C-alpha cells in the first residue's frame, strides 16, 4: 500500500526538521532538484510550460490506472527541488486525492515564501496546474 499524501508530507516535514539553518535546507533542496530525472525532450512543449514562473517549468501528467503520474522539469534547480517535493507528495494518487490535498508541508518546512503571489515565484502555479490536471482527468 502506497503512502497517503498526508504521510508523505509528514515525512518531508521530518526530513527538513533535521536542518538547523537555511543553507542546509537549501542545499538539500538543490540536491533534490539535481536528482529529479530530466523530463524527456518530447514533453518539453509549449503546452506543458507553466506560465507565471521566472524560469521555464514543464509539467507532464499521465493517467496510469486510476492514478495520476506527474513528471516535471525546470531550468532553475531550486524550482526543480520544489517540484520534486510536489511530485513526491502528489504523484501516484487518484484525481480525487490530488484535488482534495491540503499542502501544509510547504509552510511547515519554511518554503511558503515560494508561494508568494509575485510573478517570479511559480510554486503556486505549479500546485494549481497539478490540481487542474487532476480535475481534467477526473472529468474524462
Amino acid at each position, binding site marked *: 500500500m502506497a503512502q497517503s499524501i498526508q504521510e508523505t508530507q509528514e515525512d518531508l516535514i521530518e526530513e527538513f526538521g533535521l536542518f538547523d539553518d*537555511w*543553507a542546509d535546507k*537549501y*542545499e538539500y533542496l*538543490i540536491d533534490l532538484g539535481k536528482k529529479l530525472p530530466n523530463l524527456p525532450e518530447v514533453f518539453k512543449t509549449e503546452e506543458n510550460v507553466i506560465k507565471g514562473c*521566472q*524560469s*521555464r517549468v514543464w509539467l507532464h501528467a499521465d493517467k496510469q490506472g486510476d492514478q495520476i503520474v506527474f513528471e516535471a522539469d525546470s*531550468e*532553475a*534547480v*531550486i*524550482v526543480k527541488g520544489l517540484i520534486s517535493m510536489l511530485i513526491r507528495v502528489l504523484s501516484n494518487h487518484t484525481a480525487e486525492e490530488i484535488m482534495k490535498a491540503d499542502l501544509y508541508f510547504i509552510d511547515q518546512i519554511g518554503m511558503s515564501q515560494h508561494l508568494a503571489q509575485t510573478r*517570479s515565484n511559480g510554486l503556486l502555479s505549479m500546485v494549481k496546474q497539478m490540481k487542474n490536471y487532476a480535475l481534467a482527468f477526473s472529468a474524462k
Partner: protein
Amino acid sequence: MTLDIQKIRADFPVLDQQVNGSPLIYFDNAATTQKPKSVIDALSHYYALDNANIHRGLHALAERATTAYELTRTKIKEFINAPSSDQIILTAGTTGSINLVAQTFGRANFSKGDKILISNLEHHSNIVPWQMIAEEKGAIIEVIPVDERGVLDLEAFRNLLDASVKLVAVNHVSNAIGTINPIAEMIQLAHAHGAKVMIDGAQSIAHLDIDVQALDIDFFAFSAHKLFGPTGVGVLYGKRELLESMPPYQGGGEMIKEVSFEGTTYNELPYKFEAGTPNIADVIALSAAIDYVNALSKEALFTQELALLAYATEQLSTIPGLKIIGTAPDKIAVISFVIDGIHPQDLGVLLDKFGIAIRTGHHCVQPLMKRFGLPGTCRASFAFYNTFEEIDLFVKALRRSINMLQ
C-alpha cells in the same frame, strides 16, 4: 565635495534592518530607489495637516495643498531646466507619460507608413504604447540595433532616419544593462530629419544632469520613485508648441474650462492633461526628494555611484564563469551578469537568504534579452547610499551561492 555615506544612510530608515538574519543590502535601485526620511515625513505631514482637494477650494487647507502641489511643479521645472512650469505635466509614472504622448501626439501626427524609431534597449513601457498606436494608425516601428557591448549603433540610426520618421523614442539610460545613450547627438540627427524625440528618462533622472533646453528634447518622461520620491507620480515635459497642439488625453474634472452638453472647452496647459483629482500627497512629497538630491549635488552622488560600479565590476570579474552583460564605456551603476550553468532565479533566491536584494529575470526588456540570447540576467544596481563593504559581502555571498548550486 566628499559624501559622508554613513550620515546619508541614516537618512534612509529602510536601510537599517535585518533581512533573513543579515543586514539588508539593497542592490535593486534600478527597480525603485529608497526614500529619505524627509520624503516620508512630507507624506505624513500632508495627510496630518494639509489634506484637501486642490485648485478649486477657497478654504485654507485647499490653499495650502494647492500651493505645495504647484511648488513641486516649479521644482521639477528647475530640476530639468524646463522653460516654464506649465510644460510640466504630472502623471502616474514614466509609463503613464509615454502612453500620454502615444495617445495624443501619436494620434494627431502618425499616419499610414510613418515610422517610429525605438531602440533594442527599450523597456516594454517604451515599446508597447508605440505598438498600440502604430497598429491603430498603420505606422511602422523600426528598431535601432545594439552591439555586443550594449551600445546603440549610431551608423544604423543614421541610416534609419528619413522624412517618414515622425518620432524617435529612446531611453536615456538602459534599465537592464546601464548603457548611457548619446542622446544629444541622437536628438540633433533626428531633428535634422524633421523627427521629434521622446526621451525615457526613468533611469537617468536620479544620476545624470538633465537640461531639456540644452539638449533640445521634445518630450522627456521620468518617475518620482526612481528619484528617491514616492511611487505613483510621473512627469512629462514637452515643448510648448507640441503640448498645445496635442488633443487632450483623458476627460474629466480639472482638464476643462467649460462643460455643457453641447460641447466642452478644454483647460490650458498643464491642466488640459491632468484630468481628475491627482496624486496630491505623493506629488507634494516629490519636492522633498528633489530638495534632498539638490542638497547633496547630483554630480557628487553620481561620482560615488561610479566608484561603486568600478569596484563591483572589478570584484565580480574575479568570479569564474561570470559574464557581465552590457559593457558600454558610458554606464550608470548597473551590472547585469550571468554565470555559466546557473539560472539567475536560483541566485536571486539564495542571495535573498543572505539579505541581499538584486533583480533577476528579463527586466521588462525581452527583446534585449533575445538580442543577447539570454532568458534573463542577474542585475545589481547601486545608489549613492550603497557601500564598498556591501559589495564585498555581496561578492562573498555570490561565491557561496555558486558553490551551493554547482
